[in-house]
């Protein structure tokens, strides 16, 4: 996230052409920074709300012509209704943009101040969007493409989202229109972490064999085509977790065979031997759970669609642990009694983290 100083500078840039001459000095960068500081640090305005709050304050106090001001801001924004900005390029905090994207998923708002929240996606990637109730936005629907005119990019801890505000305009596009987004999220994402869950309908599955239907057949039925025998396939739906975030991943047959070293024929044989499909997903769980991998692929809705996977090399310890352990201990400046104690009960009950190395009390 930007610093208060940077916020003050970008606000100053926006304001300068509109400030009446007699108060130009009153709102120089230093003054604006002081204002930001008081909003954020004294009046506890959330950091994400500070820019708008301070801007609103100055617009009012300085008597700026707001129509002219907003018109100018929009002229400076990237993307137009004819040529919207790709989502992948929405990477400037507080920037006003016009984008075109399909609503991939709507989530349940966790707070009444939020009207709608979810994921939107175009060919280049996906972004979270938030429509605040106070700006009285129109309802948008899943699977529909919209042009979002005059929305604001927000950055929070390195990830971007867009905010629909009261000045935003939302234009719906018909499913068969030229504007409708068809391919979503071809931009790839990389996630490293430990497999912490292998979800249901992983392993050996059957897919409906009706043409153009790939739905999973459960209990001998396709939800669209009714009773169906189906064709065998392999897949894994899993959660990979790096200790800070959890990401759901989907492995189609190719990458499933690669990571488990079990191919479809072998899986079918396993199931036939035991007359039980779940033997395959159980085996996959044993193979993957608790192991560290890096996966890469496009994001689709909640899922990362894996097209490349590898066990994270430095954690595979093919050369043994010595080097990694020495490095880890050095990183934490540890050379204490934990390394020599014969029993865990001999360890001192505290450790001076700052001093490092000394240990004991």
């Amino acid at each position, binding site marked *: 996230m930007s610093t208060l100083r940077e916020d003050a500078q970008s606000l100053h840039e926006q304001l300068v052409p509109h400030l009446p001459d007699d108060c130009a000095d009153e709102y120089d960068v230093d003054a604006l920074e002081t204002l930001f500081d008081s909003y954020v640090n004294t009046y506890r305005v959330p950091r994400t709300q500070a820019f708008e709050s301070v801007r609103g304050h100055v617009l009012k106090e300085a008597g700026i012509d707001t129509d002219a001001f907003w018109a100018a801001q929009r002229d400076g924004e990237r993307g137009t209704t004819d040529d919207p900005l790709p989502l992948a390029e929405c990477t400037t905090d507080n920037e006003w943009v016009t984008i075109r994207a399909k609503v991939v998923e*709507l*989530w*349940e708002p*966790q707070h009444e101040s939020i009207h709608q929240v979810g994921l939107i996606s175009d060919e280049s990637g996906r972004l979270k969007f938030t429509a605040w109730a106070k700006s009285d936005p129109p309802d948008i629907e899943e699977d529909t493409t919209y042009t979002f005119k005059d929305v604001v990019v927000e950055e929070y801890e390195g990830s971007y989202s867009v905010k629909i505000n009261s000045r935003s305009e939302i234009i719906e596009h018909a499913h068969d229109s030229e504007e409708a987004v068809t391919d979503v999220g071809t931009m790839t994402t990389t996630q490293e972490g*430990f497999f*912490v*869950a292998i979800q*249901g*309908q992983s392993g050996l599955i059957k897919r409906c064999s009706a043409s153009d239907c*790939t*739905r*999973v057949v459960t209990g001998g039925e396709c939800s669209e085509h009714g009773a169906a025998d189906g064709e065998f396939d392999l*897949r894994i739906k899993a959660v990979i*977790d790096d*200790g*800070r975030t*959890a990401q*759901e991943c*989907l492995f*189609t047959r190719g990458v499933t065979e690669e990571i488990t070293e079990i191919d479809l024929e072998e899986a079918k044989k396993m199931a036939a031997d035991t007359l039980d499909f779940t033997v395959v997903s*159980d085996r996959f*769980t*044993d*193979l*993957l*759970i*608790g*192991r560290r991998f890096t996966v890469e692929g*496009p994001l*689709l*809705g*909640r*899922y990362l*669609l894996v*097209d490349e996977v590898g066990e994270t090399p430095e*954690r595979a*310890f093919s050369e*043994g*642990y*010595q080097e*990694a*352990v020495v490095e*880890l201990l050095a*990183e*934490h400046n*540890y050379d*204490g*009694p*934990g*390394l020599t*104690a014969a029993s*865990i*009960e001999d*360890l*001192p*009950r*505290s*450790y*001076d*983290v700052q001093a490092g190395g000394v240990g004991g009390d």
Partner: protein
Amino acid sequence: MYRRAVWEATESMATSDSQTRQGATVPDREVAKHVFAAELNEATYTFKTSQDERAPVYLALPTGERANRVCVMGTVTDVEDVGTDDQEYLRVRVVDPTGTFWVYAGQYQHEALKKLKKIQPPEFLTVIGKPRTYKTDDGTINVSLVPEDVGIVDVKTRNSWVFEAARRTLERVGSARETSPKVAALAREQYGHDGSYFAHVAAFALQNLLDGDDSAANLDEETIEERLEEAEAKGYDVDGKKPEQESK
């Protein structure tokens, strides 16, 4: 090829997720914390961050972070059915380099139960699960785990886990005070120490890892048994009885 994959992915979201869809669909899954048995067993204080009945329950880890879910690993030394005649309830004893922890699985942990039943101790087990605290008859609070996903793993996976758990423990000791100051303060108040002790525990586990390095790949069962006896003797030998009053 790519299009086909996309199609399949989209399809899978349309069908199989319809079951999970009724609930909150915000993908705010709680992450799993790598924790050694020694620390888990001391993490007896739980809290919530909201009044909501469904709000997640967190353990305050003595090293100063919260944990709603953990990723632990160790050697299963005993599996016992402590349920009633018509209701299975498995108690599984798992030993890592720093101590012993207990996993309980009943009818609601169907998948895990099925797998745990097949275990022939000793075997290495990964458990992703939710910690629960419960009061014993004498008033002490014990921590146990309700498993979500379990895997019977090899020694290599077990060793990598020991390394990772040590790394994360050292990280928590070094930085939780800055990165999660509230929980760190809470833990310090509840447990009466700052958790820095677990830096020694992490180092102890790493030492154990190095000791076994050369032979780790082909440890025979006899050696494993010997090691286990040592570890059990050192570890917290709590009397793992069936939780009577599980916290939510």
